[in-house]
């Protein structure tokens, strides 16, 4: 995803502060996946790895796309 500068800062700070704590990504109320932040972003690229169901991915894809269009 492409974040605003403020968003990048938020995520960067969250990464730094988290110390490996778990984060959860939601689309609406559906938990899409969780990941653990252990590394800071490199070259402004936030690399998030995790495992999730393809069903959730489709929901993620559509909802995030819709939300961005609505903005």
């Amino acid at each position, binding site marked *: 995803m492409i974040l*605003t500068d403020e968003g990048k800062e938020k995520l960067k700070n969250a990464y730094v502060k988290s110390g490996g704590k778990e984060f959860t990504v939601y689309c609406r*109320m*559906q938990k899409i996946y969780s990941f653990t932040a252990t590394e800071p972003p490199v070259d402004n690229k936030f690399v998030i*790895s995790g495992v999730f169901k393809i069903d959730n991915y*489709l929901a993620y894809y559509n909802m995030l796309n819709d939300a961005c269009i609505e903005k």
Partner: protein
Amino acid sequence: MKKVIVAFLIISVLCLNGCKKLSSDTSSDILSNISSIEYVDNLNDSSDASIISSINSTTNSTTSSVVSDNSSDTQNTIIRPEKVKTIYGFKEGISDHIKNTFYDTKNGNTLQYCLFIPDDYSANKKYPVILFLHGAGEIGTDNASQLTNIKNMFSKNPDYVSQAIVICPQTPEWWRLDRDYGDRKGTLSSAMNLLEEIQKQYSCDENRIYLTGLSMGGYATWELLQNYSHIFAAGVPVCGFGNEMNAAALVDIPIRIYHGTADPTVSFSSSQSMYDAIVAAGGKKVELFPLEGVGHDAWSYAYADTTMFEWMFSQDKSKSTPSPIKPVGPFRIVDSNGNNVITIDDVIDVDYSIVNLENRVM
């Protein structure tokens, strides 16, 4: 859709426009229009009083009389006991109650149900209502077993329960709200129609209608709270499971969740997930009560908890105010403390360069 587990990497660098929608969302079937509901006398062929009713007399005999409301449809006539002698804390822990049959002609279902009425019942007074939904083990038509696991409700908390109208329907199958079998709908929709019918027959406080259920009934409690949030003043799902996707509908409803942490039948994580989702959506009125080391019988503790009934009976929709916190947008990243780190306001656009572990674009 076939479930595929995918390992992925998301790299936030690309901006793609005009992304196609991959599939349509499903929506829940909210049943709202209720037409005529009739009680049918299957004991007598009376054409006027279309009701059956009996009193479960344990220690006191009661008599019944036909009470008609001439101002309404005669099909809504109900046999009401002249005097409901209610004593709590019986040997079986269950007080006198009315047994009845509900024929939901709208949805094509027949439900047996037990009805508890305060012994000081007066049409000039408004009473809180508890709708109780039993678990899978009590599925049937005997119109008795649905009371099996709520004895603590009556024996431990008579001061509260005796002041309420308690409705205990029994379903002959799994409680379902979202099922349309062609000639009929799921029985959970009929439970709501029964509630509405009881509201017509008795003097109920529409601002104090409470919902609780255990196990399968806990699932049904979540279903009804999510689809009829405007009806219920509070909900108590016990060892159930819900749909996290609908959590936004629950942010303004006072909810107490009870679940045993050692539940081998319905995982405790089911309730934890619902709690997390409601909190993530901005809900401030939800509470989770993990029962440490307790198995599936969380109801033994929940319905014995006097503080729960104290809390429940203090909930009043007329006095509640909507949560000042608006549900957050459709996308967010939440930290382990439930704080929103990234919301949709922080996203410029979607990057769909999602690749699998072999770096192949999906």
